């Protein structure tokens, strides 16, 4: 009886393996690049069960390993078939407790309606439309570099660097592709990953500019000094630069940002810079909450044209930063230099940039300085504002911020600035 059962089992398993082999062969075939418009894609989030004992497993913990991947793909295929969709890609996000599938919505169907229908399936944790996020930079003037950095004067950068340089603080720049070999950034990027289309050949303007403001090399006789030149940058490409004309803006979507956020969190980024804004999103909100729960500071650009300053600046716990040159901002929003900021650009160049993206980059650098002095310097509570000495937003007193984090009282930053005429342009 047992021998018969075993033979049956053997034949059955051989058939299964053959099927698996065919499936593998299919997987090995080149997948056509998804030409889908992100605006016509939905994200389907399947619950990722907590990992547990499995007999005979060599998995060793990793939530994303193991047989559940196959189960999720089977569920996703069923959902796509039932709703007339096409599975474009997938990416597990264990820190958010979900496995994320991207599905293309065919013409004639509303992505909003499809997402709502999918959300009702008992196998789906939730579903949402793919959203787009824009880097908040104004047009970049094609002017040569002036040896002037607003932070050098307003924030007394040289005095700050006597106290801290952000040494070994891990700052994740979630943005477009950073030029790692730029002479002012060489050696500053500790890790670089591409979570966007993976096709970028050339460095991109927005990410390179943000990275330079945060951590450009100091005392190298070139260009600028970053706010935190001792920081270790994680250059995580989640945004891309349109490949036409002189447009140097950047664009990201929900999934690319989620991938980059997940990487930053799982690699213990202490500061996460998000110089972008767009609509609120539950997946990104969940990941930001995980990051905040792990003690990371999340800094985002405040967009005056979007309700609440746009997401993620509007998310509770995120440090929202606006360009100080555009006037007062609502309570809770911090102001930092964001106009005529010289910074690194692709091709080993430097240019001026404008926008709240770059104000946010300043604050990420400043948080890194404070974080070097004290691991308790986190979030908006670490920032001291000039007007009130409080932390409820407004213009930032950079020296007071770093001093409060634990600087020696005899440092230059503890003394008044030389004179207003010199201190401010």
């Amino acid at each position: 009886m047992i021998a018969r059962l075993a033979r049956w089992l053997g034949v059955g398993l051989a058939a299964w393996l053959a099927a698996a082999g065919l499936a593998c062969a299919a997987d090995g075939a080149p997948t056509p690049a998804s030409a889908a418009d992100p605006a016509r894609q939905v994200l389907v989030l399947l619950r990722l069960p907590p990992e547990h004992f499995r007999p005979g497993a060599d998995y060793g913990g990793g939530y994303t390993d193991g047989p559940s991947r196959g189960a999720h793909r089977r569920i996703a295929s069923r959902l796509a078939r039932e709703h007339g969709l096409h599975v474009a890609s997938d990416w597990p996000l264990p820190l958010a407790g979900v496995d994320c599938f991207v599905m293309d919505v065919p013409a004639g169907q509303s992505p909003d309606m499809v997402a709502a229908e999918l959300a009702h399936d008992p196998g789906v944790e939730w579903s949402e439309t793919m959203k787009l996020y824009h880097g908040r930079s104004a047009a970049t003037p094609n002017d040569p570099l002036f040896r002037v950095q607003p932070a050098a004067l307003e924030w007394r950068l040289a005095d700050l660097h006597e106290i801290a340089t952000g040494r070994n603080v891990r700052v994740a720049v979630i943005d477009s592709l950073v030029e790692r070999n730029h002479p002012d950034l060489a050696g500053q990027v500790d890790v670089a990953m591409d979570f966007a289309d993976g096709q970028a050949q050339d460095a991109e303007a927005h990410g390179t500019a943000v990275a330079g403001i945060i951590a450009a090399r100091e005392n190298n006789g070139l260009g600028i000094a970053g706010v935190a030149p001792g920081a270790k940058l994680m250059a995580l490409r989640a945004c891309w630069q349109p490949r036409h004309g002189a447009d140097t803006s950047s664009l990201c979507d929900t999934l690319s940002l989620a991938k980059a956020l997940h990487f930053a969190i799982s690699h213990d980024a202490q500061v996460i810079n998000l110089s972008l804004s767009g609509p609120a999103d539950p997946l990104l909100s969940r990941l930001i909450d995980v990051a905040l729960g792990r003690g990371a500071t999340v800094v985002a650009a405040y967009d005056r044209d979007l309700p609440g300053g746009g997401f993620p600046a509007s998310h509770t716990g995120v440090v929202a930063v606006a360009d100080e040159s555009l006037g007062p901002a609502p309570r809770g929003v911090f102001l930092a230099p964001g106009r005529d900021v010289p910074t690194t650009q692709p091709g080993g160049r430097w240019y001026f940039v404008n926008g709240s993206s770059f104000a946010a980059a300043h604050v990420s650098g400043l948080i890194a300085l404070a974080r070097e002095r004290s691991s308790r310097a986190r979030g908006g509570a670490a920032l001291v504002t000039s007007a009130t000495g409080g932390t409820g937003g407004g213009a930032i007193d950079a020296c007071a911020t770093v001093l409060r984090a634990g600087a020696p009282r005899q440092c230059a930053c503890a003394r008044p600035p030389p004179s207003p005429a010199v201190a401010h342009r």
Partner: protein
Amino acid sequence: MAAAFALLAPCLAGPVRGQVAVSVTAQSDYQYRGVTLSDGRPALSLDVGYDHPSGAYAGASVIGVTGPGGNPQVLGYVVYAGWSARLTPALAWDVGVSNARYTEPTSDAYKADDTEVYAGLIAQNVSAHIYYSPNYLGEDAAALYLDVDGTVRLARRWRLFGHVGELAALDGGAGLGGARDYFDIRGGVAFAFRNGEVRLAWSHVGPRPSYDSGYPEARDGMTLGATYGF
């Protein structure tokens, strides 16, 4: 075991859909904590697992080997049920019970009937479990087994994995071939493809245990395995 499934029954009947995972694993040698149970012969296992949204889970594995004369033969099966939940986004606890029955490869008689209760913690890249068995591998001996497993991802598809386990006999080793305790280590590299993974592992046990139930002694060396999930 029946009681465990009875406890799960209300969950399985719930309105929220759970997830069923089916996988097939082929291995050049079926090893259990460093001891070969297939006498060094290739083994094929079919694994079915169920995860309920509440955190309850259950599963079963059937293991087949090539027996004498080249005929396929059932080596044994493992059934398990438990509960796991996240303490934080990156840390989960896990408790459960498993029952394994294995035959000696050269006969049809079951030689081991081993029930264990276990508890553990699982983080992103490392997990640790402690197991209690009143009749370890069918021997007339109670034992505790503690293991730590870890994985390091080298690239998206490549990872290293490692395992360290320590078995402690609770009766002074009288029922475990005289060995009061032994350890096993295992390490290797894995390559992931779409729904599956290929693994090459090396394992070692020391000191080598000898069981009355007739299994061959521990076998050091390399094993090759592949898993495909459906």
